[in-house]
C-alpha cells in the first residue's frame, strides 16, 4: 500500500473545516500537495505531532481533528497515546502512516519493523477504536467510518517506503505555518490569537 494513495483517498473524504496536523517529512509534503489548506498545521517535529493534536482537539472539541503521524514520530513519545486517551475525546482521528522506518531521516528501520504493534499499544493505552490496515480498500473503509463517527479513532496504515515523483517542494516554514493556521482559527472561530499588544491586562 502506498502512502500517497492513502492520503489521496483521505483528502477526498475530508470536510474543508477539518483540522489536519501532520508530522515533518514526506507525509507533510504529500499532504500539502493533495490538500493545501490553512486548516493544515504541517511539519510538527519528531515526537510531538500527537501532543500538538491533543492540544488542538481539547481546545476545539466541536472541530474534527485529524493527525497524520509517522511511526517514528509517535514512537518517540508513546505516552501521548495514554494522554490522548485520558481526555475522552470525541473529535480525533489519529492516523499513523507506518512505513516501519525513519524515511525522512535516511530510511533506517523503526521499532515497528520489529515487534512493536502501535494499534496494540494504543488499545492498551485506552484508545477505544484502534485498528491496523494493510490494503487501500481497508484504509478507505476504516477512514470513512472513523471520520463519520464521533470518537477517538486510531488507524495504523502499513505503507511502503517511498514517495511519488515530482512532489512540489514545501516552501512553508514554521513561522509562516503558525500565522496561516492561527489566522484561519481566528477567522473560523471568531477568536483573537495573535496580539502584538496584549491588552488583556
Amino acid at each position, binding site marked *: 500500500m502506498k502512502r500517497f494513495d492513502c492520503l489521496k483517498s483521505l483528502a477526498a473524504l475530508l470536510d474543508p473545516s477539518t483540522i489536519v496536523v501532520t508530522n515533518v517529512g514526506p507525509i507533510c509534503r504529500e499532504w500539502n500537495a493533495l490538500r493545501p489548506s490553512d486548516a493544515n498545521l504541517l511539519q510538527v517535529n519528531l515526537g510531538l505531532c500527537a501532543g500538538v493534536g491533543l*492540544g488542538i482537539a*481539547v481546545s*476545539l472539541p466541536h472541530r474534527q481533528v485529524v493527525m497524520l503521524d509517522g511511526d517514528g514520530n509517535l514512537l518517540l513519545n508513546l505516552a501521548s497515546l495514554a494522554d490522548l486517551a485520558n481526555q475522552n475525546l470525541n473529535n480525533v482521528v489519529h492516523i499513523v502512516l507506518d512505513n516501519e522506518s525513519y524515511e525522512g531521516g535516511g530510511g533506517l528501520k523503526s521499532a515497528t519493523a520489529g515487534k512493536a504493534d502501535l494499534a496494540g499499544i494504543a488499545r492498551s493505552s485506552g484508545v477505544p477504536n484502534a485498528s491496523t490496515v494493510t490494503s487501500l480498500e481497508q484504509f478507505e473503509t476504516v477512514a470513512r467510518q472513523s471520520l463519520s463517527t464521533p470518537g477517538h479513532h486510531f488507524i495504523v496504515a502499513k505503507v511502503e517506503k517511498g514517495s511519488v515523483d515530482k512532489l512540489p517542494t514545501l516552501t512553508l516554514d514554521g513561522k509562516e505555518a503558525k500565522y496561516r493556521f492561527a489566522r484561519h482559527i481566528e477567522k473560523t472561530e471568531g477568536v483573537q490569537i495573535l496580539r502584538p499588544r496584549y491588552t488583556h491586562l
Partner: protein
Amino acid sequence: MEPAAVDAVVEGLKKSGVDFISLMPDSDFSVLQDRVAKDKDFTYVPVSNEAIGVAVCAGAYLSGKRPALLVPTSGLLVAAWPLTSINMAWSLPLLLLIPYRGDLGDAFWMMGPYKDTTEPLLKVLNVPYAVISKNDEVAKAIVDAQGSTISWQRPVAVLLTGETIK
C-alpha cells in the same frame, strides 16, 4: 507549597488570562496541581512528560487558548527539545512556571545539579525569566510574564523559589 503561595499563583494565572494548564505531576506543585485541576476556569490537561506538555500547549495556543505549562525543575530538561523545535522554530509563546529546586538553600543533594542547569538552560534557549521568592510578588510576575510571552511570541518563565515553594 503553602496555601498563600498557591493562592498567589492562581490569582496571577487568572489575572493574566490563562485558561489552559498542562502539567506533569510533581511533588513541588502537587497542591497547586490539585487546585487547578478542580478549577473550572482552567482547561486542564495532565501529561506524562514535559515534552508532550510543550506540544499540547502549542496546539492549545494555536486554537485560541492561553496556556501555561507547570514544569518540574528537572522537567525543563525534557522540555528543552520541543521548546527548541516548536517554540523557537515557530516563534510561539508559552508561559512556564517552574519550581526552582536547586536554588541556594535547597538542602537536598539530589537537587544540587539543577543549580547548574536551570538558569543556564533558560539562557541558552533565549527564554527570559524572573526569579520570585516572595508570595506577594508571584501574581504580578505571572501577569508580567504572560503579557510578554504573548506579545513577544517567545516563551517566558517564572522561577519560584524561597517562601513560594516552601
